[in-house]
Every structure is written in C-alpha cells, then in structure tokens.
C-alpha cells in the first residue's frame, strides 16, 4: 500500500518537475526544477529497493551536476549582463515527435505481460561491492580512467589563454 502511494507521489513530482525544466523561460529556475526532478528520481530508486543508488543520486546528481550547471549559467549569464530568455522554437514539432517516441516505447511496454516481483535481496550493498571488484572490475577501472580524462579535458577547455 505504502509502496503504491509512494510511487504515485514520486511519479507526480518527477513528471511535474521535468515539465517545469523544459518549459520554464528562466534558465536558472529550470536548473532548480531539475534538482527537484533528480531528488524525485532518487525516491523512485528507493522504492525499487536500492538505497545505495538513492544516496549516489543525491550526492552526484543533485549535488554535483546541479552545482556545475549553476556555475556555468552564472558564468555565461554574467558575461552577457542579463538573464537569458528562453523562447523555444518549433514547439509543436518537438511535442509531436516526443509524443510519437513515447507512444512507440509504450507500445513495447504494453506488449510485455505482467512480471511478478521477486523477493528483495538481503544486503544489496555487499553484493554490489562484490560485483564491482569481481566481474565488473575492468569497467570500474575504465570509468576511473574516463573520469580522469574528463577532468583533464574540462581543465584544458576552461583554461585562460595566456
């Protein structure tokens, strides 16, 4: 029962926040609405018995990404000297195409039959840890490399010309 209620709350918040992200004229407000959406997503993770992911989501996304985007907006906005207006173009085309894609995906979702929910894992965190250093050790290292490269790339791009 609680699960159903929790789902609907999270779902409504998520969808509303997403709509706000794409429709708000003010970019700064959009970023804030994105933060709300990301928290709602974390709630969904919690409902799916992944507390670790909920924490990771809050830390990385709602914390890190939102901060970066805010900084970027402030940097670009300040240099221009005014808040950037958002007037979307060809709204109807975009809405139509998005709706079409949604319907397409929905078609596949509805075709699948009902799937029973299996029993929850006892200790997801331990299993996750074991998986990361076990079968998924190699991708983990690659992710590390990727992060280093991304850091270097971002540094290089953002450097001031001397």
């Amino acid at each position: 029962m609680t699960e159903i209620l929790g789902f609907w709350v999270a779902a409504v918040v998520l969808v509303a926040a997403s709509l706000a992200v794409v429709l708000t004229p003010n970019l700064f407000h959009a970023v804030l609405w994105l933060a709300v959406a990301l928290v709602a997503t974390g709630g969904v993770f919690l409902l799916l018995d992944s507390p670790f992911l909920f924490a990771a989501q809050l830390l990385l996304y709602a914390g890190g990404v939102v901060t970066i985007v805010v900084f970027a907006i402030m940097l670009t906005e300040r240099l221009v000297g005014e808040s950037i207006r958002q007037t979307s173009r060809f709204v109807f085309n975009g809405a139509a195409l998005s709706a079409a894609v949604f319907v397409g995906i929905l078609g596949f979702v509805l075709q699948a039959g009902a799937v029973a929910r299996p029993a929850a894992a006892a200790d997801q965190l331990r299993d996750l840890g074991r998986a990361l250093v076990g079968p998924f050790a190699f991708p983990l290292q690659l992710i590390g490399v990727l992060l280093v490269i991304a850091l270097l790339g971002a540094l290089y791009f953002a450097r001031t010309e001397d």
Partner: protein
Amino acid sequence: MRLGSPELAVLVLFLPFVSFLLIALIRPLRRSGRPAAAVSILAMAAALLTACLMWQHAIDAPRGTNPSVLWSWLPADGGPMASVGVWVDEMAMQMCMLVTLVSLLVQIYSWSYLADEPPPSLGRYYAYHSLFAFSMLGLVLAPGFLQMFIFWELVGLCSYLLIGYWYDRPSAAQAAVKAFWITKLGDLGFVAGIAMLWGSTGTFDFATLFQAAGAGTLEVAGLGTIMFLIYLGAVGKSAQFPLHIWLPDAMEGPTPVSALIHAATMVTAGVYMVARAYPLFALVPSVLTLVAWVGAFTALLAATMACVERDIKRVLAYSTISQLGYMMAANGAGSPDAAFEHLTAHGVFKALLFLGAGIVIHHFHTNDVFRMGGLFVQRPWVGGAFVVATLALAGVWPLPGFFSKEAVLAAVLHGRLTLPFVMLMATAFLTAFYMFRVVFLAFFGHAHHPHEHHAPPLAMDLVCRALAVLTLVLGLRALFAGHHAEAPAWLPWLSLAAAAAGIALAWATYQRHALDPARLSAALAPLAFLARRRYFIDAIFAAAYRGVLLGLSRVIGWVDRYLVDGVVNALSAAALRAGDQLRRLQTGHPQDYVYGVALGVLLLLVWAQLR
C-alpha cells in the same frame, strides 16, 4: 587454261615491297636519292624477270580448276573468316608482266626526267613507286574481294601520294585530294557491295563464288544491287561518267606518274575488276547493259572534251578516259577478253604517248600545244615514236590499237547494243581527229619560238624507243594471231574509214589550214561551249559536296551541341541542383540533427513492432 606458279607470284609481289621497305625505313638510303632509285629499279627489273619466268613455266590445267592458293588470315570456327593468297591465271600473269614492265620503264624514265629534284624528294618518289607496284600487283593477284579491296585502297593512296608529289604546289595538292575524294565515292559503293555479298554468301573468295555462279547455286537476294554497288568502285577508279572528273586534274603529277598510274595500270584496275568478277556480273545482265552504256557514253563525252583542250597532258587524260570507256563497254557487252586485250594494248601505247609528251614538254618548256611546232624535223626519232603511238590509238592497221578496238566493237555489236556502237564509232572518229590535231600542232608546222638543240636525255629517249618497238611487236603478234570469228566483214573497213576521216579532218584543219578551226567550233557552238566548260560536271560536284556535306555537318553539329551535350549538361545541372537542395539538410544546428536521430529511432520502433 594456264596456271602460274604461286611461289613465283608471291616473289613478284614481294620484290617491290621489299624495295619499298628498304627505301622507306632506311633513312640515309632514302635521303640519298639516286641509290634509292637504283634499288627500286633493280627490284622492278627482278620482278619483271620473275613475271616472265612465271609466264614461261605456266602449266596447262583443265578448265574449272581453282587457280587460287589461299592462306588463312583471320581464323574462326568453321573456316577462316578471311584469307589472303594469289590467283594466278592467264589474265593475272599478263597483267603482272604489263605492270612490272611499264613500272620498270617509267622508273628508268624518271631517273632522267626528275634529275633536277633534290635527293630526299627523289628517294620519296621511288619509295612511292615501289609501294605502288606492290599494291597494283597485289590487286591483280588477289584471289578474293577482301584482298582486292585492301590493295584497291592502297593503290588509291599511292595515287594520292604521287599526284601530290610536288605538294607545295596548291594545284597539285588540290588535285590529289580531289582524286582521292572522287575515287572514295566509288569505293563506298564497292565496300558496301562486298559486305553485302559476304553477308549473303559468307565468303570473299573468287573460287567459291565463281564455282557457285557457274553451277547456278548462288542464292543471293538483290544480286543486281550488289553487283551494281561493286561496279561503282570501278566507276570511280576507272573514271567512268560521272566520276571521271578527277583524272584530268591528276595531270598535276609528274608526267611519268601519269604514264604509269593514269594510263596503264591504276585506272585499269576497275576494268580488271569487272573482267575478273565477270562470272558474277554475267548473272545480272541488266547491270552489264548499264556498264556498256555508261562506258560508251563516257568514251564519247571525253572525246568531245579532248577536242577543245590546249594542254597536251589533258588531251591525253581525256583520251585515257575515252579508252577506258571502250574497255568497259566491251565488259558490259559480254566480252571481258576483248576488254582485257584493249587494256594491255592501250597500256603500252598510252604509256608511250605520255612519256613522249614528257619529252615534248621538256623540249618546249610548255604544255600548250598552240605554242609548239616543228619538233619532227629536229627530233625525228621522238616524233616517229609518238606518231606510231598515235596511229595505234587511232586504230590504224596493223598496230595493236586496231585489233583491240575491232574486238571491242565486235563484242558490242554481238551484244546487240546499237546506240553504244554508234557512240563508239563516233568516238573512234573523234579520237583520230584530236590526237592528230596534237601531232600536227606539236610536231609539224612552224616552230613558234626557236629553241636550243639539246637532245633529250638518254634514258627518256631509250624508253620511248623501247615502247615504240613493243607497240609494233604487239601489233604484228595480233596480226598473226588471227581475227575474231564474230566480227562482221564490214567492221574493220568501217573503223579504218572512221580513223582515216578523223586524220584527214585534222590534217585539213591544222596542217593545211584549209578549214578554220574557229569556224569549225562556231558550227558546233553549243557543244564546244559545254565541252570547254567540261559540261559543268565539276561545278555540280562541288555544289553537291558543299550542300550535302556542309549541310549534314551543320545538322550533326546541332545534334551534338543540343542533344548530346544537352543531355550531359542537363544531367550535370540536375546533379548540381540536387546537391544544392540536399545541402539544406546541413543547417549546422545540432537540434535539427537530433530531430533526425529521433525520427530514425521512431522508424526503428515502428519497424520492430511490425516484425
């Protein structure tokens, strides 16, 4: 029938070819002049000797044996597509002897006649002569239409090269091109006829064709058209009306060349071809009748034009056209033997006439007969030789021209061709008239301008004397060989009378001055007018050429510019336009590209659903 040895025939053929290769390829030899001439003359003498040997050692064979020896040239499944070889019957052997003899004599004559030429030009001249001898012999010995055609074209090429020997003279260059063009017109018909014949029968070879023709098994649709087309080749090469206009202009070449090519050998190739292919022509009597009529008409037409000519070489050219008409008339009347007899006799005395004219021109330094006179007194031997040849041409007994002309007239009469017969008799009268006009004007009468008494060069003199002796010998041989059975008794007397009348008229007009030539031509004013302007045939040809060819080229140019280029241009313009339109897809806005990606994803989803 007598058959010659194929090996000797090949030797005769290749001796002048080797001489040509040596002179053409070894540059120092050619540029040295006299040594090249020596090589060519030696090769020609050897070829003559071989030809005579071939005649001596000919073997008798029963009628109907295949006289040809073939080697496969273009192999194909089911027999070779084309063969080369030699066909060595009596006519071919006699023709070989004639060609090699006249070539040799002309080449010796040229040694003196062209003594002033720079050595490289002389080398070039003798190279052409060797090539011509090779081509003519190849034509004569051809066992099939394909080989004959190849050598036919080669001979035409040599004619072009030799007429235009003095290529820096515009008139000579134009005359060479004209000769080539007009004979090419006839050759178009020739090659079309040969191709159609091959298409129907699958073979070029004479042996196969004649055998089928003789047995009556030759099943060819439109044989009349085919043989007419083949005859067109002879019309061009042997200067029949209306393709005779190139021969008078061909006199721009050196006189020995005129003697060899345009009197004795090349122009007779057409007559030879018709005589050779007679078994096929015999199947289409309508074409033969046409051949006879055209021949007779050409003879008369050319004779009228010769009567008003001042240039001695032009007179001889028209005379050649006229005599070629005689030969063709004999072919058409059904007697290729008579045609061939006249061909060989004419070859000898016409060559003598041309070479003698060369001496005359050399002496007077002009071609115009009205500026000559009194040469007989100064040079009796030259005059004597010339008069002998003229009597032979006029058909006076006992010279070879009389017998051969009688044979031609007898054949025409036998073929019941009345009007051609009348035309040929009239031509005989005119021939005697205009030839003796030349004789009286050039050799008798008063010398207009006093000239130095230097003797003609030895080579030229000796050659003329040799030819004169040969003419007399041929006449005696014909005399003792007996008359033809078909000739009616009154025929020889009639032809003699015509000749005598012509000689008398010429004597009265130009020697005795009893008749005024001006009043004579006034009496025949319209004819004289037309004859002087060559009956406007040249003008008609030029206008037709300009009209047809240039008009056609304009049409083709239009098609090329607007249709062919138009298609290509339209295609490229379409490609450019399409490209321009397509580049609008590249807006540079990433969002538009995302649109594309999203559309693609949509399509994928739809496709996955439908599977």
